[in-house]
């Protein structure tokens, strides 16, 4: 037994020696994607490595975007970050502040990408990411078997919703645990999370109170949403046909197309009757970001990999597989995009959206909104008190950043 173990140890050490002396370039890529998009990530990596045998791309899936952000900062602090990130634009704020990513100006031809997508990662006059897809926004998705047409406004939503919600079936589901789902409604009530300066939180406002009251009514008065519902529960209820409508992002389109096929409908989130305004989901996109200090062969390999993923062919592949709006101008003009009803619905929602702030202070807003939204949805706080606490929490968080 001892001999076997010794031989195994020597073999493993020899493998280590081979890897140390190997001339291969090893890129580590962290991705925020899951399910179908992750499968696409894997196939891209496989295909790229086949075509470029001198490069190894190690794909690491992070549980969610928050874990990716935390882990990347921790890894950077420890001096061992991954080389590339596949993540959302709002990470640019904290990463630029912490000086853990490099700008991409001069490394790539940025003129070939949609301008709005590039603007979402522009900070301090530089671009900090290369866009993969455009959007990343929430929209209303509905099951045509259960509801022939999406409601136009909130009154219609409540009327239809009351009819559809019965015996374990719900009219509408959405992730009630994340304030990302609160933001569209806040926009619908004509509220914003920041003042004009873009960094002062404006969470204790009549608009926020109205939004929280609206969410409370949706749950406790109209009772058209489940008593408790996180992302997975909402997703499962919709896929199982137990929910007629879901508010979810463009990242989920591919999965729902696979389950519902032609029965999937895409529409804008219903207009808020009280203000006559369409809800405004945050728009951004998915981006490649380069870790600080990437240079030499690794940088060259990263440029090649990014170029491969963002080729027109692969962008069209993304549209076909995931129904995401491409960030490459050429791909956006392809008939596959312009004539696709799902993408048409998605872009129709996107035009009323609002760009997601990338500043570091947004982190404080998210963290402050989350528990208070939950408190309103558990009826443990009034919307007025919750809005007040949101504001003081955000202010104390921003103070702590200094």
């Amino acid at each position, binding site marked *: 037994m001892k001999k076997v173990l010794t031989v195994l140890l020597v*073999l493993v050490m020899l493998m280590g020696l081979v*890897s140390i002396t190997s001339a291969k370039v090893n890129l580590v890529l962290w991705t925020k994607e899951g399910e179908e998009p992750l499968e696409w990530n894997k196939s891209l990596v496989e295909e790229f490595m086949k075509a470029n045998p001198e490069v*190894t791309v190690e794909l690491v899936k992070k549980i969610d975007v928050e874990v990716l952000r935390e882990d990347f900062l921790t890894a950077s602090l420890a001096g061992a970050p991954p080389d590339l990130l596949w993540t959302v634009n709002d990470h640019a704020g904290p990463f630029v502040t912490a000086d853990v990513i490099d700008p991409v100006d001069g490394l790539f031809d940025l003129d070939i990408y949609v301008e709005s997508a590039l603007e979402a990662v522009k900070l301090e006059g530089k671009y900090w990411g290369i866009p993969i897809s455009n959007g990343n926004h929430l929209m209303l998705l509905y099951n045509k078997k259960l509801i022939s047409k999406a409601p136009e406004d909130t009154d219609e939503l409540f009327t239809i919703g009351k009819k559809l919600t019965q015996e374990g079936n719900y009219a509408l589901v959405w992730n009630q645990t994340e304030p990302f789902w609160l933001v569209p409604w806040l926009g619908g009530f004509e509220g914003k999370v920041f003042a004009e300066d873009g960094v002062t939180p404006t969470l204790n406002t009549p608009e926020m109170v109205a939004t929280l009251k609206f969410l409370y009514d949706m749950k406790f008065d109209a009772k058209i949403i489940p008593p408790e519902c996180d992302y997975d529960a909402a997703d499962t209820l919709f896929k199982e046909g137990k929910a007629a409508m879901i508010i979810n992002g463009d990242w989920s389109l591919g999965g729902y197309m696979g389950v519902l096929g032609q029965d999937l409908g895409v529409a804008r989130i219903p207009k808020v009757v009280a203000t006559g305004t369409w809800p405004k989901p945050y728009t951004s996109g998915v981006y490649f970001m380069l870790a600080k200090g990437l240079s030499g062969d690794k940088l060259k390999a990263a440029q090649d990999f990014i170029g491969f993923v963002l080729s027109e062919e692969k962008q069209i592949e993304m549209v076909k597989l995931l129904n995401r709006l491409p960030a490459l101008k050429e791909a956006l003009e392809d008939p596959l995009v312009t004539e696709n009803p799902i993408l048409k619905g998605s872009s129709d929602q996107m035009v009323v959206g609002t760009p997601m702030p990338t500043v570091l202070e947004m982190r404080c807003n998210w963290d402050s909104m989350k528990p208070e939204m939950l408190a309103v949805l558990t009826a443990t706080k009034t919307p007025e008190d919750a809005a007040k606490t949101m504001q003081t929490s955000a202010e104390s968080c921003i103070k702590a950043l200094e």
Partner: protein
Amino acid sequence: MSSLTARVITGSLSQIGSMILYIFLGIIIFEVVVYLVLGKIFKSKYTIPYMLLAPAAVGLALLVIYPMAYEVRLAFTNMSLRYFRNYNLSLVQGLKNFTLIFTEPVLKQLKFFPLLSRTILWTVINLIFHVSGGLVLAILLNRHMRGRGIYRTLLVFPWAIPQIVAVLAWRGEFHFEYGFINVMLQRIGLQPIQWMIDPFWNFTAACITNIWLGIPFMMIIILGGLQSIPAEFYDAAEIDGASNWQQFNSITLPMLRPILTPAVILGTIWTFNNFNVPYMINRYELETSDILVTALFRAAFEYNRYGFSAAFALVILFILFIFTLTYIRVTGGIKGVYE
């Protein structure tokens, strides 16, 4: 994806192999240096013992002493997201960090002392159930009965499951829509509970999970203690006409004390510092379910207040140190070790 799996395995083994290789080479170089310095230059007769101890000493220094020293240093800096690479190190900054812990919210709303009170409440609730539950089960198992081995195995089961796996399984059972507990509540005509988003129930859910996880350890420890008490003591007590309660109070409890003392100290420290259960069960980051260590983690890795968090960690260490000293002194629990 089978080819990818093979590649992943090879890649992982290569990484492990290179790490072992580096450690191996490092040890050889270090041993040669120790041999040359002690054996050849100083001609020490303890060269061989020092050479044998050297790798462990270096390992301890790297894994324990260096992180502790780094932590103390970090506590005197303003390191945060804004000052990630260009932070200041000064005594004034350290004092500011320690002052902030007691004067400003640790996270969003919650200040230190309410958080400490909740942590103590969490520890007391859990420990009461761990010790009483463990004691009752150990007494039940410490007698001749059919199938004792099976009962013992079943009762130890929660301890055998990796904690994180058990906690995630429990979290699934607390799911509002699909969790076993709510399904059962509905079956018997009760309203389902919002375990994940209601502050009271979320804290309760964390307590239930940790009590379930902690009882087997206490049971095993106490069972070991019970089996070491000579039967003659009980025989003599019975001849003297002592009741069951008198036997328990005058023989069992005093004889268990040397075993219970370290178990309670360990249990307190583990529960006080338990991260997995309150963090994983508190899926939606309710501040009302945070205890000191989860708040510390959030302050460090979610709010990126590294300097502040390092100072906060030292405060927690100090609290546990004082508790341990006091407990040992009051109970005299480890007297036997010295006498």
